[in-house]
């Protein structure tokens, strides 16, 4: 378990290498259908990034915040306006600044966490969700006075080269999500993450050890919203390809929240598992509906089944496995390892 590079152990590095080879070489070479990129891989990675953000504030710092979509909207519209109004700004630069703007909102709306906790904080942070969307709707400047309400996102241009095809956009996302995930892991495993978790588990004791609650909570809110902001910008520019405040409504916030809970509170890889499950499950249900029952089941029933299954799963996970699918995955890995070591 000795780290050999940064905080990563050999197993981590092998996993990372496999993921990168699959993600950057195997998938682009084998998957040619645009559907896989535009409908599955791109939204998956974008939402997984937002889930990491939600994970930091909820899973690691234990602050029940509900407003990921608000910060995503802040990031998306910040990115749009930066590219629109700052001539010659590099896309990655605009993306980072968008994250910082979302982080500023995060600090602002994180302030109630210093006074209230639990369900009350959840209600207080809902304000961010509604305020940010309202602000974007209310002031035409944010939407460049577009009357239609839906603005087309600009093309992603990096070093003069436009990245417009699904596969190119996918690679841009991989290039952003990979380092950001590693950075999140570094923080989570290092002293920063320990501060977060100490506040989560027992704030009085954390304070007695010299952890400043004010600083730690606001820092977590800022970093969390940074991740959400970048994710929102990517989501709008690669998946939606348009900017509309409605896309970032409360439903998306709940979606991200469910991804955290199903994936597993306080795990980074859980963010990816949770996002994959929530995105793929409806696809799978539709597939079953169309190919097994040959359309005999009405589409509305299928979407109703989807809701029911999510609800039931949520309850099951909260009761039996608060650490979510990430923990299940660990258990399965250990069991498989045992199986092989026996033979």
């Amino acid at each position: 378990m000795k780290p050999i590079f940064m905080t990563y152990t050999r197993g981590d590095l092998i996993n990372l290498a496999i993921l990168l080879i699959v993600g950057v070489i195997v998938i682009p070479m084998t998957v040619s259908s645009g559907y896989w990129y535009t409908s599955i891989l791109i939204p998956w990675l974008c939402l997984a990034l937002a889930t990491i953000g939600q994970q930091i504030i909820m899973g690691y710092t234990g602050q029940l915040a509900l407003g990921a979509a608000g910060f995503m909207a802040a990031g998306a519209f910040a990115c749009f306006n930066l590219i629109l109004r700052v001539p010659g700004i590099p896309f990655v630069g605009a993306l980072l600044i968008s994250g910082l703007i979302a982080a500023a909102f995060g600090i602002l709306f994180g302030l109630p966490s210093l006074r209230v906790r639990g369900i009350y904080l959840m209600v207080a942070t809902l304000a961010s969700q509604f305020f940010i969307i309202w602000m974007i709707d209310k002031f035409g400047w944010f939407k460049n006075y577009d009357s239609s309400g839906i603005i087309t996102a600009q093309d992603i241009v990096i070093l003069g080269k436009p990245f417009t095809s699904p596969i190119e956009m996918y690679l841009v996302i991989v290039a952003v999500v990979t380092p950001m995930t590693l950075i999140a892991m570094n923080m989570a495993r290092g002293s920063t993450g320990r501060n977060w978790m100490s506040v989560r588990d027992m704030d009085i004791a954390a304070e007695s050890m010299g952890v400043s609650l004010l600083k730690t909570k606001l820092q977590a809110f800022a970093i969390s919203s940074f991740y959400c902001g970048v994710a929102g910008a990517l989501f709008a520019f690669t998946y939606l390809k348009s900017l509309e405040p409605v896309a970032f409504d409360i439903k998306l916030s709940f979606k991200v929240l469910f991804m955290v809970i199903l994936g597993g509170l306080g795990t980074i890889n859980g963010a990816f598992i949770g996002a994959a499950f929530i995105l793929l499950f409806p696809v799978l249900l539709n597939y079953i509906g169309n190919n097994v029952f040959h359309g005999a089941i009405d589409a509305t029933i299928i979407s109703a089944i989807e809701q029911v299954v999510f609800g039931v799963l949520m309850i099951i996970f909260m009761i039996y496995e608060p650490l979510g699918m990430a923990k299940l995955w660990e258990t399965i890995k250990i069991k498989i390892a045992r199986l092989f070591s026996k033979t």
Partner: protein
Amino acid sequence: MSDRNFPIGGPVLEVKNISLSFGGVKAITDTSFDILEHEIRAIIGPNGAGKSSMLNCINGIYKPQIGSVIYKGEEVRKVTPNIMAQMGISRTFQNLALFKRMSVLDNILVGRKLHTKSNFLEVAFQLPKAKREEKTNRDRCEEIVDFLEIEDIKNTPVGKLPYGLQKKVELGRALATDANLILLDEPMAGMNVEEKREMCRFILKVNDEIGTTMVLIEHDMGVVMDISDRVVVLDYGKVIGDGTPDEVRANQKVIDAYLGVEH
């Protein structure tokens, strides 16, 4: 007592005329005593005597209405847990306040917080400073793990450990702060004789090898009398006895408080 590695020095912490009440209930009334450097000082008293409240006043969790806390000759203007931690006062809690979902080693590592100067960006990018600090902190915590003989459970989440071991981890976390003074709130509560003896051994060992001033609370007189240098006895929020264990044992008021008096 002359053969100690760290001979007892002057007063390191004094509480002066502390009064604390919750609404109309008086928890502590006009209480003063001092703690000498490198000593093991016990605060004892029957249940509800105000022992834990006293500790919480020193540590800044409660704010006494009247009175002051004097640390190293200077009055502490604003007593908060964070400021006291920065001054080198650490503590454990009566009902255990560990970080339940974190491993034993991570719990102890949180104790190193005030010795960690790298910010989140340095940690995020694993810059040399953050890596160096992490290594130093881990080495120090491994030492504490060795010292407390909890090597075999260091990667276990604390919430899964039995009570006695959790108490040990909490002591470890307090030790990791390298504090000059550690406040132990009932370190032996709920332990069996064997565990109590072991805990006493650790308290004496810490005091002897590191020289940490220890303040411990107990309501069970027995154990405390054997290991402390001086004992202060509280009853109904007032000091009814203060002195060496032998003096306290002979004090009529103390005997009355513990055994009851005929009326």
